[in-house]
C-alpha cells in the first residue's frame, strides 16, 4: 500500500506556494523563481481502477460543482464528456484482447494532465489567465480569463471547457488549493483502491515502477508508465496495462505534442505579422518623406477647366 497523505491539522496553515512560485504565466514574461518547488504528480493506475466514480463525485464535491442531470444512452460514461463542471470523467473501453482472448475493461480517469509544456498556457492571450507553478501544477485563473477558447485549441488532450454560463474556461486544478496546504487532491483521497496516488513526481515514478513490475509479472508484458515526453512529461501520469497502445484507453494520445499549427500560429505568425505591419507603415512614412505629396497642379486644374468648358460651349 502506498502511504496515504496524512489528514490535515485543524490549524490554519499558510499556503506552500503562490504567486512567487510561477514558472510560466500566460501572455506574460516571468522570471522563474531561483528555488523550484519539488515537482508533484498524481499517478492514476488504470489497472487498479474499478470504475466506481468516487473520484468524480469527490471532484464535484470539493470544487462545489453541480452537473446537470443527463440522459442515459446505455453507456457508463456519465456525463458523456468533460464539461465546465465535470473536470474529471471516467471513460470506459471494452477491449477484446486478441492475444489473451480476454475481454478487458479499461477504465481511464480523464482530465487535465498538467503538462510540463502546457499548450493551453502557450495559446492563451490573456495575461495571467493560466499559470504554471514550479511544482508543475497548471491552473486557470478565472478573474483573468476572457473566454476566448484559445486554450481549447492549444491543449493536446482536449481538456479545457468554456462555460456557457460565465464564458470562462474550466478544467482540473490538481486541487491546487488542497496541495497548497499539504493535502492530496480530492479524487485521490476518495479513491477506495488506491488507483489514484499523489506525491512528488519522483516518488510517483518509483511507485509506478513497482506497479509496472507487478503487472509484467502477471503477463502484461507491455505494461508501462504514461508520462509523454512530447509535452515535457506530465504531472498526472497513468500506469497502463498496454502502454504500447495508449490509444486503446478511450483515445488517449499516443504521442501528444502541442499541434504544429498552434506552434506556427503562436510563433512565426506573431513575429512575421507584427514585422509586416511595421514594414508597411515604415514604407509609407519613408515614401512620403522621400517623394513628398502627389499634388494636383494648377495646370491640371486648367486642363480640367478647358475640358469642361470646351464641352459646355
Amino acid at each position, binding site marked *: 500500500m502506498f502511504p496515504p497523505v496524512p489528514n490535515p491539522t485543524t490549524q490554519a496553515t499558510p499556503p506552500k506556494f503562490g504567486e512567487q512560485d510561477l514558472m510560466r504565466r500566460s501572455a506574460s514574461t516571468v522570471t522563474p523563481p531561483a528555488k523550484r518547488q519539488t515537482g508533484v504528480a498524481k499517478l492514476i493506475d488504470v489497472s487498479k481502477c474499478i470504475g466506481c466514480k468516487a473520484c468524480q463525485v469527490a471532484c464535484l464535491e470539493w470544487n462545489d460543482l453541480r452537473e446537470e442531470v443527463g440522459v442515459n444512452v446505455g453507456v457508463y460514461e456519465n456525463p458523456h464528456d468533460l464539461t465546465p463542471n465535470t473536470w474529471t470523467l471516467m471513460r470506459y473501453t471494452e477491449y477484446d484482447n486478441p492475444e489473451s482472448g480476454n475481454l478487458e475493461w479499461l477504465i481511464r480517469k480523464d482530465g487535465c494532465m498538467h503538462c510540463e509544456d502546457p499548450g493551453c498556457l502557450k495559446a492563451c492571450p490573456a495575461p495571467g489567465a493560466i499559470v504554471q507553478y514550479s511544482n508543475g501544477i497548471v491552473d486557470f485563473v478565472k478573474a483573468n480569463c*476572457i473566454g476566448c477558447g484559445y486554450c481549447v485549441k492549444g491543449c493536446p488532450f482536449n481538456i479545457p471547457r468554456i462555460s456557457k454560463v460565465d464564458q470562462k474556461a474550466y478544467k482540473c486544478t490538481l486541487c491546487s488549493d488542497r496541495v497548497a496546504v499539504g493535502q492530496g487532491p480530492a479524487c485521490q483521497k476518495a479513491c477506495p483502491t488506491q488507483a489514484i496516488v499523489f506525491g512528488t513526481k519522483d516518488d510517483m515514478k518509483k511507485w509506478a515502477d513497482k506497479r509496472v513490475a507487478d503487472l509484467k509479472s502477471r503477463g502484461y508484458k507491455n505494461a508501462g508508465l504514461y508520462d509523454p515526453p512530447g509535452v515535457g512529461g506530465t504531472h498526472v501520469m497513468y500506469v497502463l496495462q498496454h502502454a504500447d497502445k495508449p490509444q486503446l484507453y478511450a483515445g488517449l494520445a499516443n504521442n501528444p505534442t502541442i499541434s504544429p*499549427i*498552434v506552434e506556427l500560429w503562436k510563433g512565426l505568425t506573431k513575429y512575421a505579422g507584427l514585422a509586416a505591419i511595421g514594414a508597411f507603415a515604415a514604407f509609407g512614412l519613408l515614401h512620403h518623406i522621400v*517623394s513628398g505629396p*502627389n499634388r*494636383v497642379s494648377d495646370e491640371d486644374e486648367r486642363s480640367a477647366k478647358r475640358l469642361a468648358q470646351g464641352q459646355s460651349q
Partner: protein
Amino acid sequence: MKRSEVAPGDSVHPGDPVIVDRYTTAARINHWITATSLVLLALSGLALFHPSLFFLTGLFGGGSTTRMIHPWIGVVLFFGFLGLFLRFWKLNLWERTDNVWLGRLRDVLTGHDENLPEVGKYNAGQKLVFWSMSLLIIVMITSGVVIWEQYFSEYFTIEQKRIAILIHAISAIVAICVWIVHVYAAIWVRGTISAMTRGRVTGGWAWRHHRRWLKELVTGRP
C-alpha cells in the same frame, strides 16, 4: 464597345475650379461604417494577437468584452463591405490598361502620372485593394465564425478551429497591411480624401488621376 466608367451620381460641375461629384451620400455613409468597423476590428483583434498589445482591450472595456464584441463588429464589417462591393464591383473589373499601369509602378510611386495610361474611375492599385479586401473579408468572416467560441464552438472540431485561427490571424495581418496601403494612398495623393468626406473632388484631381473617367463625364461617351 468600351465600358462606361461612370457610376450613378457621378457628375461634373464646370466652374473655377471644376468640381466633380464622385461618391453619393449613401456610398459615403456605407464607406465610413465599413471603415470604422475595420479599424475597431484591427484594434480589438490585435489586442488578442500579441501580449504586448493586450492593453488595447482597455479601449473596449476589458478583455472579455473585447472578446465578445470583436466578432459582432465583424458581422457589421461583413455587411458594410457587402454594400460597398455591390456598389463598386463593376468599375473594379480588371482591364488590359491596368497591366500597363501596374508595369509602370515606378512612375506611380514617383508621381509621374503623365507617363501612365489614362485611368477610369479606379486605377489598378485601387482595384487590387478592392479585390484583396473582398477576398480577405470572406476568409476572415468564414474563419472567424469557426473560432467564435460563444455560439459556434459545438459545430467544429478542435483541429478545424486550430486551422481557422491560424488563417484568421494571417488574413487579418494581410488585411491590415492592405488597409495601410489604402489609407496611405489616400493621404499621399492629395485631394483624394474629400471624395469620401464631401463626396467630390476637383476637376484637376480627376484630370490628373482619373482622366478617362473625367472625359466620359464631360463628353457623355466612354
